[in-house]
Every structure is written in C-alpha cells, then in structure tokens.
C-alpha cells in the first residue's frame, strides 16, 4: 500500500508538472460551464412561460442539475481515456516500467497507485464541476440532497471508468492506441443497454443491469441505493483486477 501511495504521488505531481492535468481539467470545466449555462437558460425560459399560466413551478433539480450531471457523464466517457491512456503505456514506452517491476512492489501495488493517481485528478476535475450547482444552492432553492447524491453517483461513475481505462493502458505500449481502445471500450460499455428494446426478454434485463447508465441514473435522481454503489465498486474492481492480470500475463508471455 505504501508503494501504491508513492506511485500515486508521483503520478499526481507529474500530471501537474506537465500541461496534461491542466488541459483536461480546463476542458472539462469549460464544457461543464457551457452545458450548465444552457440548461439554466432553458430553465429560465420555462419559468417565464409557467409564470404566465401560473401552474406547477418547474424544478431546478429536474431541469438543471439532473441533465447537467447526465451530460457530465458523457463528457467523462471522452475525458477519462485522456487521463488514463498514458498511465502504464507511457511507462512501458519510456523504459521506466522496468524500474517499477524490478522494485519490491507488487503488480497490484502498481495498478493501485496508478488508479489513485488518476482518481485524485478526476476528483479535482469533478470538484470544480460541483461549483456551478453550489452557486444554485446559494442563489436559489434547489434541493441540496439530490445534488449531493447525484455528484456522488458521478464520482463512482468516473472511478469505475478510470479503472477500466487503466486496464486498457496496461495492454499497449502506445498512449494513442490505449486512448483509442479505452474510448471505444467505454462507449460500448456505456451503450450496452441500447439494443435492449430490440432483443427483449431476459437478455434485455441483463443488458440493462450491466450498463452503467441506469445505475448512474438512479443516483442522479437523488436515490442512493446499495446495489448501485455495489455495481460501480464491482466495475472498478474488475478493471483493476484485469489490469493486474494483464501485467502478470505479459511477464509470462
């Protein structure tokens, strides 16, 4: 564990010593701000219309925060590969991987360190995106509970995707290849339930359960359930386990 923290620390310092972390975080924040603003102006339009007819008041949570978090999910599919693609692939290419493997640290320790490193950067990124809903809490009257639950869901979503991205990065020596494969894998994984209406029956239920969107959806709605949390933890553990197995298998090749 100590070794994992050493690797994580180096990972974070390196990311902030190069433009990478700044570019990814800035890009994410910019996109987040854009979508938040457009959902908010959409909400204002609806508010103006309902004022004319004085029916039910539109909800900030439903019209701004929920679609905002859902959009961030999709942005994460594209940005997580950028965060994870270099993690192991780059070490292999530059030869530093030999130092990691020949130091008294297990493969699991290396994978864990890489995961923690990327997770911290992702948390900084997501933390910034929470600022916009926080402004809402200060200036208006959304329900804070569902906002926090949704954010929690977003964090779990990001962590599980990072684990998968690291597993893919362990496969390749090339950052670009790792990045492209992660993007495809994460997109397919995210869309896993898309064919559900076509296939129907039990298979559809299985696909719906395996896809992350429905689990994230419940959390974003503000409902925290054990099974959804367990789902994301399982995905993350599967990713980390796969990464560790890939490292092992490559040594025995």
């Amino acid at each position, binding site marked *: 564990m*100590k070794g994992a923290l050493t690797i994580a620390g180096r990972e974070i310092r390196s990311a902030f010593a190069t433009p990478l972390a700044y570019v990814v975080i800035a890009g994410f924040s910019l996109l987040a701000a854009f979508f938040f603003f457009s959902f908010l102006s959409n909400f204002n339009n609806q508010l103006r219309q309902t004022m004319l007819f004085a029916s039910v008041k539109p909800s900030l949570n439903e019209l701004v925060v929920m679609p905002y978090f859902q959009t961030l999910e999709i942005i994460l599919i594209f940005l997580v590969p950028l965060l994870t693609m270099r993690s192991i692939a780059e070490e292999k290419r530059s*030869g530093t991987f*030999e130092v990691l493997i*020949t*130091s*008294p640290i297990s493969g699991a320790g290396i994978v864990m360190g890489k995961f923690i490193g990327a997770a911290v950067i992702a948390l900084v990124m997501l933390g910034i995106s929470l600022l916009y809903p926080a402004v809402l809490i200060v200036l208006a009257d959304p329900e804070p509970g569902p906002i926090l639950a949704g954010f929690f869901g977003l964090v779990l979503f990001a962590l599980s995707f990072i684990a998968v991205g690291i597993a893919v990065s362990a496969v390749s020596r090339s950052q670009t290849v790792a990045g492209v494969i992660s993007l495809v894998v994460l997109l397919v994984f995210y869309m896993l339930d898309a064919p559900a209406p076509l296939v129907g029956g039990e298979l559809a239920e299985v696909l719906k359960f395996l896809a992350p969107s429905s689990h994230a959806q419940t959390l974003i709605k503000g409902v925290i359930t054990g099974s959804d949390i367990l789902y994301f933890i399982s995905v993350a553990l599967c990713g980390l386990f796969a990464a560790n197995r890939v490292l092992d298998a490559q*040594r025995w090749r």
Partner: protein
Amino acid sequence: MIEATGLCKNFGEIEAVSNLSFSVAAGEVVGLLGPNGAGKTTTMRLLTTFLPPTGGTAKVAGWDICRESESVRKNIGYLPESPPLYPEMQVGEYLKFIAQLKGIPKKELRAKVEAVLERCALDGVVKRLCAQLSKGYRQRIALAGALVHEPKVLILDEPTSGLDPAQIIEVRQMIRKLGEEHTVVLSTHIMQEVSETCSRVIIISGGRIVVQGNLAELTREKCLEEKFLEAVAGTWPSCPPENGAAR
C-alpha cells in the same frame, strides 16, 4: 552472490537464452560479453526478476528469483539499457521516488539520496529536470537510482553505451569503485571495458555460455579479443537459424 542453474527463456518459438549456469561470488565484477542479440539483456532481465525464466532458476543474494522475487528485488540495483527516467521530474525528486519505491524508511530517505547524489557527482543538478540533461548525466542519474538503496548486487546493462570517451572513462572508474562494495554484473560488447573493469568474464553467444573464466587466465595465451572471436565463431555472425527465427 548469484547462482544461476540451467536458466532458460523462450519467447514463443524463439530461444533467447538456454541452459545458462554460472555463479558470481560476492565482491566480484563480472562482465557479460557477447555480440548483439546474444541474450545479455534477457539474462539480466531474468536475474532482476523483470522476466520469469521458462526453465531453471537462479539465486540472487541468497533468494530464489522465482519464489522469493520480492526479496531479490530489494537487494538488487538494476540499470536498464536506456536510462529509465521521467523527463518531467527533477533529479532530486526522481531519486527520492526511486528510494521510496525500494522501501527505504522515511527518516533515512534524505540521507540516502544526498549520499548517492554525492557519490555520482550529481550535486550540481539536483533541481534540474531529467529531460534537460545530457545523455551522460542521464546515465549517471539512472546509475544513482540503481545505487540509492545500497543493494548487494548491481546489474548494469551496457552502462557506457552512448557516452562520449571522457564519460566512458568516468563511468568505468565508477564501476571499479562500485566493485569494492557491491557485486557487479555488467553487460557490454566492448572488449576494452571488460579488461578495464572486470575480474571475470562470461561470454555468451546465441543464448548459450561459450566461455567463462577469470580474466587473467583467459588472456594468458591470447588477448581477449581473439578469445572472443574464437568463442563466438561457431554461433556468430548470427545468421538466422534454420527455422528462420531471429534471435
């Protein structure tokens, strides 16, 4: 200090090294000599537990490379062929990171890093980024990384490749000095390097040991160069073997 018995490593169909048996006593500086592609790097990767052997085993510093690889890794310093540096890190930071990886306790970190900086004459560049330094410096930083935890066994893969003549002399002097405290295995294909730094020679070609022995004994009748050419004559120039597999 190192006891290899029947080490083999295959990459698929290709036999990279086969049936290597040799031993290195404590305090020896041993040169692993051979033409390019002879299996020097593979041998070193086996000894450093970077790759597991397909057959046979070895004991390094008293531990088995297959079953007790973690203890082996604690007791070796490895300098790979290309300096394993992180370009965005400062020299001091890098060495601290390596020392932490090697499991040096926090309160000894500073002292160890400072000691190795002085030993490798890197005091002047502590705050510089690895990417900005010349090849000679980078090689020395990598060597410092291999030395920082004061390992019993040092494994150096072509420590002087790519250096200029002055730096080569400098590194060779360092290796001679290292031999006083550590057991050193170095690989090279430069004869002169062996005769200047090593006490014993192992010549491998085509993945097999063709000659091993004391430098003084080997060079009694003929010079090392003739001995080398004679030893590798059967297996080199390394034309592809019959099945066409490259070594």
